[in-house]
């Protein structure tokens, strides 16, 4: 059994958007749409401000509301790694999954179906890393199996402080940010 997750080191991420470009190229994401994106989160009280740069995408949640609400089963959890995927020819474009996602990670592809990050499952299945991870110039992104104690993602999560985005939404997200 595997459970894929992504760990992103916010101390190393410079927001260069290589991950965004790699995703668009690898997955032929249409112009004007993004499966992943960069967020700059500034918080604090001037002059004691703290900035965190995050590369964000679908969180491939353990409790994916997008899968639960899908009326046709187009949104589903892939048997490999618990990756949340959309079967295009089952999707009716009702947009319930877009409304159900607290991360707003989905969009409607110009061809009419709901689209999102797939963790580049087509690459992972042949032993490659997701495109965004493979191109990161600062090596701030890690991808691996949470169920494998020896994986990089597990080691990092065990040794560094980290957080997820909107854990309070209760979806058990699988993208973690090292702080």
């Amino acid at each position, binding site marked *: 059994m595997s459970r894929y997750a992504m760990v992103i080191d916010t101390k190393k991420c410079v927001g260069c958007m290589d991950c965004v470009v790699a995703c668009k190229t690898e997955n032929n994401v249409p112009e*004007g*749409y*993004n499966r992943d994106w960069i*967020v700059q989160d500034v918080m604090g009280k001037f002059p004691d401000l703290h900035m965190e740069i995050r590369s964000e995408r679908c969180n491939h949640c353990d409790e994916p509301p997008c899968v639960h609400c899908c*009326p*046709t089963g187009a949104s589903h959890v892939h048997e490999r790694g618990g990756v949340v995927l959309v079967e295009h020819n089952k999707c009716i474009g009702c947009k319930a999954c*877009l*409304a159900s996602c607290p991360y*707003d990670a989905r969009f409607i592809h110009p061809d009419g179906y709901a689209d999102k990050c797939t963790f580049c499952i087509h690459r992972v299945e042949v032993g490659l890393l997701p495109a965004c991870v493979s191109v990161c110039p600062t090596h701030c992104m890690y991808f691996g199996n949470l169920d494998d104690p020896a994986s990089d993602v597990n080691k990092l999560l065990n040794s560094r402080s980290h957080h997820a985005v909107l854990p*309070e939404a209760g979806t058990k997200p699988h993208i973690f940010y090292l702080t």
Partner: protein
Amino acid sequence: MTTHEITTTRMNPMIDPGMHIWGWEIPVYLFLGGLVAGFMVISGYFLFSGRFQESRHVTCFRAPLTGLILISLGMFALFLDLEHKLYAWRLYTTIKIASPMSWGAWILVLVYPAMAIMALIHLPDQKHLPIRVEFLHKLSQSLRSHEGLAKTIGAINMLGGAILGMYTGVLLSSLGARPLWSSSSLWLLFLVSGMSATAAFIHMVAPTKAERELLAKADNGFLSLELFVLALYLIGLATTSDVHADAVRLLISGTYAPVFWIFVIGVGIVIPLGIQILAVNHKVKHTSIPPLMVIAGGLILRFVIVMAGQHSHWSNAHGL
């Protein structure tokens, strides 16, 4: 002052800067669904209580037929909203228990035969039908002669209508990522609002004063209940968490407040309720204006809830 500023490079259509995935089609669909649910419950009640022998009542005949037309219009609006229209048939290849939209699709299919049979019961009383289909009339007479069967059809329609009305609210409240919809009273609000709009509709078209009077009284009850449920809905959200309180502020004092207070509460509930209380006490005449206001208010309620709900968000994590 503590700052929390978020900048994102994402600008996906219909998602950023604020979600706008559903336009006019979904509020219209939800409104018509609620209206038809009300037709089923009220007409079903007339059958169940044995009033179907009082043949002049439009409630028993015209309402189910009108309901069939309205639910078809609602489903057409829903179809227009789909982005992958050629695959709409996929809805009927599976039943997803966790998806209210899936069981809603099946409920809509069951609504048709239930309402059609109810409409059949009063076929012989209609002198103005353009054609007279003999086997339908025989079927109708047979249904009327079996009082128990007619009452069962009424009960089935009441149950089906209640489920349909609840479903229109559950459809939204199951989408927990939008805090404004994340309320356990939304189904009741939409059900009562649908019942109110139906009572107003029948009140408006009823040919007899007795029936108008009866439906006006019923509508007064539904409107009072709707005010109460709306208050529960607002208070419930305001006291749940900061996220939900932020969401409900959209209605109470935010962008949608003018429309909400003036058109939903004022024009849609309070003013027609006041006029209809005077009407049932014979202080003023029954007119079509209060029912029209109620129907318009019900439609605007769906628009406000759907539009404001899309703007509500779990946190400021994505640039709200």
